[in-house]
């Protein structure tokens, strides 16, 4: 124990100071050695004398100093052989490398190779030069440690009194830093790839991208944006957004986008508007623009403006609207057609009864009586009503046509006489017939109805007289032709008249002509430009229905104040096609006698059934009545017993006509069947009896017509009349 603690403390402090000083001096010495600034070391010999040693030849002090250093240090002689190394150098070499050549002990390679020289002798003649090598980037593929990176310092040691001695090499491990650098390089590569990807996206998308900084200055723009802005890169600098991005409404009002931007920023959400972009190049482009506020990584508020050219979109939207309008129109027409057809069907059933019972009553009355006269008026009114329903059915294309291949000119020549009676004297008529004998599949009576209708319209358009041409001719269509196709026709014909050979019938007038809106609704049923009460509005729609049912088209050309031309276009019949032999229509009134023939009458509409049954009975037929298919089968006379004919409605509550016919063909195949229906198109639903069409009669028909039809069937005179529609 020290009795004088004060002095002892001082002493200790002094010793510590001295030690500190020695240590820092040792550190400074090492530092100097490493940097090649030291020639030699002064080492005390065992005899207490100071000896100057070159640093390659130091004693225990040198060793202890060396071993404190974490960095590998090698001391080599002038032939590059290792003569001394410290502890970390020995660890690196996995043993004491003394005696081996430095280049053999460590396979160091320069990390940066110029021109790819991978020589291990990269230090060259540095001792003999003598050359100081500082912070050389090298690496080592170590068998245990893996890839290590070092900074190499190499200093030749030359003492004047001893001459060339060799050198000292120190290595500083920078593997961690290097790996981080490599990582950064790799990451840099990824960033570059990402950047390239982003660039190729922004260069190629059709949307314009504008990146704006906090002060609405343009930071980035892609090529599409410049195209839309109508500006080149050289014109951009120094211009702010408001200058290059000017939008206005369709009506030409300037749009201030700052409100939209503020809104978007407040909500933190995108905002989108449409407008006309006034390009720097003076062009106007309809665009949609979206504004996206963006928060950068440094929290600054930049934003993106995305521009889309919507010219195409607008025009396709317009087209969509247009086609929707067309579709609506077509749906409307279809609905009217269905309605008309439906009403006509029910109406026909009623007319059948009215006219039928009237016929029956007339038969019982003497023609001279007052009641007979009255009933004749009822019958006339009924016939008018039937003609009206037949027009409606024509429009809805459900009327019965009897088309056959006939000369087109015939329609006009048959009409010629009537024309002069239809027109006033102040209208000059010129008929120009095709010199060619053009033939088409037509129903002459119906087609005449079409022409009469057109002629009457022409007449009405020329109250003060004018000229009217009636023409026929041939036309060849090479590619789809939509000229003159108004309203519904254009829609129905798809893209217009399909290519092919056609015959046409044309009515041209010098009347007042029609405007666009009239042309658009020309063929609508109940559409009329005539005064109330003067036209039914069914004329042209009926004509249209007939022509379409014949597979034809209308072309209409009109100029206000100049006149109109209506062309009925019909597909030309094959020159080799043969006309079917003329078949008699419904025969005229002729006395009939059932002579005890047995007829089964199947009809669910009681009034109709009662009426038909009455007619048949009064004419000598034996009648079995049934209200539908099932009822009929139940009442069917056994095979062997007499049954001459089954008259059946097509559509009934319960089993219908077609199904019944199927059963009958099994049970009583020899029995003839007559189908009756209010729809002409129902005929298509009829079962085909081998080689021929089934018997069919469309309601309404008169009692005489009905009886004649039955008589013909039973006498085997008639095969079913060919009926073509659509």
């Amino acid at each position, binding site marked *: 124990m020290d009795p004088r603690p004060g002095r002892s403390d001082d002493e200790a402090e002094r010793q510590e100071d001295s030690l500190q000083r020695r240590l820092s*001096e040792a550190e400074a010495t090492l*530092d*100097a050695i490493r940097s090649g600034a*030291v*020639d030699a070391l*002064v080492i005390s010999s065992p005899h207490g004398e100071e000896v*100057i040693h070159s640093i390659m030849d130091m004693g225990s*002090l040198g060793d202890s100093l060396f071993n404190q250093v974490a960095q590998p240090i090698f001391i080599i002689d002038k032939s590059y052989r290792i003569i001394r190394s410290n502890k970390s150098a020995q660890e690196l070499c996995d043993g004491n490398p003394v005696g081996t050549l430095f280049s053999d002990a460590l396979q160091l390679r320069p990390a940066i190779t110029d021109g790819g020289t991978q020589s291990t002798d990269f230090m060259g003649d540095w001792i003999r030069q003598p050359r100081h090598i500082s912070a050389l980037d090298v690496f080592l593929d170590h068998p245990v440690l893996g890839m290590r990176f070092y900074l190499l310092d190499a200093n030749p040691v030359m003492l004047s009194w001893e001459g060339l001695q060799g050198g000292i090499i120190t290595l500083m491990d920078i593997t961690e830093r290097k790996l981080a650098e490599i990582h950064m390089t790799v990451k840099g590569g990824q960033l570059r790839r990402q950047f390239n990807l982003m660039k190729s996206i922004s260069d190629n998308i059709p949307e314009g991208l504008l990146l704006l900084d906090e002060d609405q200055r343009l930071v980035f723009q892609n090529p599409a944006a410049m195209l839309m802005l109508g500006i080149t890169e050289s014109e951009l600098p120094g211009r702010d957004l408001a200058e290059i991005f000017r939008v206005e409404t369709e009506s030409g009002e300037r749009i201030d986008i700052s409100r939209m931007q503020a809104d978007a920023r407040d909500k933190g959400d995108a905002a989108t508007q449409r407008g006309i972009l006034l390009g720097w190049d003076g062009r106007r482009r309809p665009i949609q623009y979206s504004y996206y506020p963006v928060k950068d990584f440094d929290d600054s508020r930049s934003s993106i403006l995305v521009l889309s050219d919507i010219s195409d979109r607008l025009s396709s939207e317009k087209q969509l609207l247009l086609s929707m309008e067309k579709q609506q129109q077509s749906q409307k027409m279809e609905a009217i057609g269905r309605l008309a057809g439906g009403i006509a069907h029910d109406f026909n059933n009623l007319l059948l009864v009215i006219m039928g019972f009237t016929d029956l009553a007339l038969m019982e009355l003497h023609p001279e009586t007052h009641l007979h006269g009255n009933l004749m008026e009822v019958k006339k009114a009924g016939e008018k009503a039937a003609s009206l329903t037949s027009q409606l059915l024509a429009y809805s294309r459900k009327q019965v046509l009897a088309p056959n291949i006939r000369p087109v000119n015939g329609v006009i020549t048959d009409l010629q006489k009537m024309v002069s009676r239809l027109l006033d004297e102040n209208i000059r008529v010129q008929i120009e017939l095709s010199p060619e004998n053009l033939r088409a599949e037509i129903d002459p009576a119906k087609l005449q109805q079409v022409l009469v209708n057109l002629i009457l319209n022409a007449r009405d358009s020329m109250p003060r007289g004018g000229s009217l041409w009636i023409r026929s001719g041939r036309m060849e269509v090479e590619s789809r032709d939509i000229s003159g196709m108004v309203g519904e026709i254009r829609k129905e014909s798809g893209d217009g008249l399909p290519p092919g050979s056609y015959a046409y019938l044309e009515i041209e007038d010098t009347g007042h002509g029609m405007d666009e809106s009239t042309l658009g609704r020309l063929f609508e049923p109940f559409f009329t430009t005539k005064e109330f009460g003067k036209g039914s509005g069914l004329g042209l729609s009926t004509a249209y229905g007939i022509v379409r049912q014949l597979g034809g088209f209308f072309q209409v050309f009109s100029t206000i104040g100049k006149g109109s031309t209506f062309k009925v276009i019909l597909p030309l019949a094959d020159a080799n096609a043969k006309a079917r032999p003329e078949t008699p229509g419904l025969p005229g009134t002729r006395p009939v006698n059932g002579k005890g023939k047995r007829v089964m009458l199947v009809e669910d509409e009681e009034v109709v059934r009662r009426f038909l049954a009455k007619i048949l009975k009064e004419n000598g037929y034996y009648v079995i009545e049934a209200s539908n298919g099932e009822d009929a089968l139940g009442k069917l006379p056994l095979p062997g017993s007499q049954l001459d004919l089954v008259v059946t409605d097509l559509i009934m509550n319960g089993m219908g006509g077609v199904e019944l016919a199927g059963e009958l063909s099994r049970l009583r195949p020899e029995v003839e069947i007559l189908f009756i229906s209010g729809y002409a198109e129902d005929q298509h639903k009829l079962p085909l009896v081998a080689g021929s069409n089934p018997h069919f009669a469309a309601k309404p028909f008169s009692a005489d017509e009905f009886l004649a039809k039955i008589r013909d069937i039973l006498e085997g005179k008639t095969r079913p009349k060919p009926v073509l529609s659509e």
Partner: protein
Amino acid sequence: MDNSSTDNAATVSRENDTFLLKLYVAGQTPRSVAAIENLNRICEVHLHGRYKLEVVDLARNPEQARIDKILAIPTLVRSLPTPIMRIIGDLSDTEKVLMGLNIRKL
């Protein structure tokens, strides 16, 4: 402001201090020569007229190393003003030398 009154006399040399410097070298090695040249230049610039420089060649008199406890060569020792300071190396880094000798840069 009077610098001398605020500076620490123990660590910062005064304007009128005379520097006693000893440079230990061993023969005419390139580093010894460089060290002598560097030191002369620094002293002329920064300590003009107030230094004494002695160059000691330990190759001739190794025992001289004992006086200043020299470890490596070349070493510069500042004997005065106290405390004693040492700089090892060829003195090529002027900044480092000025800092090591505690000389205010002029």
